[in-house]
């Protein structure tokens, strides 16, 4: 959890310092992709707390989910139907699911895991 926050902070600082921006047309896709990858990161934290972390699964989920979510948003735009809602609902609810599990692990697990985190 703390690592994720630190990572996001670092990324945000780098992002603000770098002069690069992207086209405004892609904001929707990027937003949905951010949500998807955020969910992956939460899943990763949870797996780490449960000692089940698998790098391959994490990396493939991180990029795969983001790309799929952005692709859904794009297809939805083409079809004139907001398909990205599917991504928002799925990843949104999973995000809170993961967070709930992280909280429980954090609060009720024994010391060793807590220090590990």
């Amino acid at each position, binding site marked *: 959890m703390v*690592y994720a926050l*630190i*990572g*996001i902070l*670092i*990324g*945000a600082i*780098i992002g*603000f310092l770098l002069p690069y921006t992207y086209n405004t047309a892609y904001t929707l896709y990027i937003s949905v992709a951010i949500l998807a990858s955020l969910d992956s990161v939460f899943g990763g934290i949870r797996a780490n707390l449960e000692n089940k972390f698998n790098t391959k699964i994490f990396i493939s989920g991180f990029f795969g989910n983001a790309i799929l979510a952005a692709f859904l948003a794009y297809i939805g735009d083409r079809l004139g139907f*907001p398909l990205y809602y599917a991504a928002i609902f799925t990843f949104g609810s999973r995000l809170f699911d993961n967070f709930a599990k992280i909280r429980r692990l954090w609060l009720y697990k024994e010391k060793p895991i807590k220090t590990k985190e």
Partner: protein
Amino acid sequence: MKKSNPKLIIIISSAIIGLFIASQMKLNLELITPVTVKSIITAKNELSAAKIELIELEKLVEQKSEELYALQNIATGEDNIIDIIESDLKMNKMKAGYTKLEGPGIEIIMFDNLLLNNNVISYNDDIIHDVDILNIINDLKVAGAEAICINEERIISISEIKCGGPIIRVNDRSLGAPFTIKAIGDPKVLMAAVNAPGTYGDTLRTIYGIGLEPYIVDKLVIPSYKGIFTFNFAKPMEEGE
């Protein structure tokens, strides 16, 4: 080494997320709300209405600048104010129907059903009524007629067409069949307005057997209104607030 791996990966991946979040925040976007087709259509309508208004306003600006130009000419003494007022008067007289007009248009000759042995039940169906003339004239007006006369009686805004037994009365003058209706306007459109299938004129001719012969004329002359017309009740409204 293996234990530090997950944390490092999480840090790196969150850093990527942070990067995107930051770059998105830098764009300073307004909130994007989902748009429905209905709202798009309303917005489109509003846009087109605004465009039409803009065009009208531009026309108004043009007109006003022309007026301003005329006034400036008067002020500098290049134009005589009397000339301008006279041309105004001419225009207004033309609009009111007090000027003889000429132009392309159509001429319709209408006469009663002349057949003796027809199977129409009532003789009333064989003759032309005031309503028939009224309908034909209305059709012509819809088709964009600019000046209309019946048997050399000019139709102006207050002209009446009323039944007077075997004759009709227009501008307080009695007119008898055959009637010659002249109208200045786009000849093709006017022709279609009385001749096309389904129009009132077509019904008169094909069902009631009343004579209705429209001709396209390149140069019609329509006389001016000959009566005297005064306002007894109507007064111009004071302009202002």
